[in-house]
């Protein structure tokens, strides 16, 4: 347990043949998306070139909410089955969700600056996406505390309950904010022209595909990273106990502490 692993038997990394293929495809897709976003798709009539930001904004928004759903789902599954896999998935998905939500807010804010002249507007979607951001951060803060709480068998219900409520809360907040802001908005410039078609629609779809692939790639790596952290957490403790026992000259099993 205390000898270093034999690295020659496989590079020490969270990568795998699958992720390398996925990663390569994602990069290629990203390049294609850049091409379409900037070169091969036209500017919008109303928004002009601001629409090119939508090709990041909309996909990251979809991924962020999906990732949040995954965290809720994983929390629910953990409550039923208490397996490490679901436990780790919840945190991994939430952290990747934070990154996507942040980028979504950033691109949305810049888009707003171009179109409306301000970085912030009490638009229902910016507001509820910001709330999603904060909800995720709260969840991750709780997770960090919960994982330091020691015995893995005991901790977890706290985070799981909060995780379980994450997506429902996001939906309730989104619904409330939407209803609230709809009282004040006249002819809304919706984020996306509903009659979007042609190359722009294709670019948007491509964006969704590419960012979904990016999400999966990031999620897999983050999941494996957390998985290793869990392993190290438990083996680290075992190793430390073993060393203490060895120092005390106590046999590994059945000795008094």
């Amino acid at each position: 347990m205390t000898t270093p692993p034999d690295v020659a038997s496989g590079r020490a990394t969270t990568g795998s043949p699958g992720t390398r293929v996925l990663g390569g495809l994602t990069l290629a897709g990203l390049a294609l998306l850049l091409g379409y976003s900037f070169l091969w798709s036209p500017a919008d009539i109303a928004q002009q070139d601001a629409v090119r930001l939508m090709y990041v904004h909309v996909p990251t928004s979809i991924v962020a909410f999906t990732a949040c759903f995954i965290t809720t789902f994983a929390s629910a599954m953990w409550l039923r089955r208490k397996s490490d896999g679901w436990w780790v998935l919840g945190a991994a998905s939430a952290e990747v969700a934070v990154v996507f939500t942040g980028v979504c807010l950033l691109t949305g804010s810049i888009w707003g600056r171009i179109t409306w002249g301000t970085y912030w507007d009490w638009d229902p979607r910016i507001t509820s996406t910001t709330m999603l951001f904060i909800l995720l951060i709260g969840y991750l803060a709780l997770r960090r505390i919960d994982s330091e709480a020691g015995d893995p068998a005991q901790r977890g219900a706290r985070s799981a309950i909060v995780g379980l409520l994450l997506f429902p809360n996001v939906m309730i907040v989104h619904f409330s904010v939407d209803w609230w802001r709809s009282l004040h908005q006249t002819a809304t410039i919706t984020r996306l022209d509903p009659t979007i078609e042609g190359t722009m629609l294709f670019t948007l779809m491509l964006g969704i595909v590419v960012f979904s692939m990016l999400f999966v790639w990031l999620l897999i790596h983050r999941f494996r990273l957390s998985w290793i952290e869990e392993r190290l957490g438990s083996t680290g403790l075992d190793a430390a106990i073993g060393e203490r026992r060895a120092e005390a000259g106590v046999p590994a099993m059945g000795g008094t502490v």
Partner: protein
Amino acid sequence: MLAFTHVGFLAAGWGISLAVFGAYALRTVRRGRSLAAQIPPEARRWS
């Protein structure tokens, strides 16, 4: 540079987004590598 309106904003938006994803990906993979080196190969069931 192709003649876009709001070039600066577009560049900033896309640029920062890609930078954030790149940085996060790099950080995750690097942490993964350093931690994976500390556990025995059998625990790494994916490579």
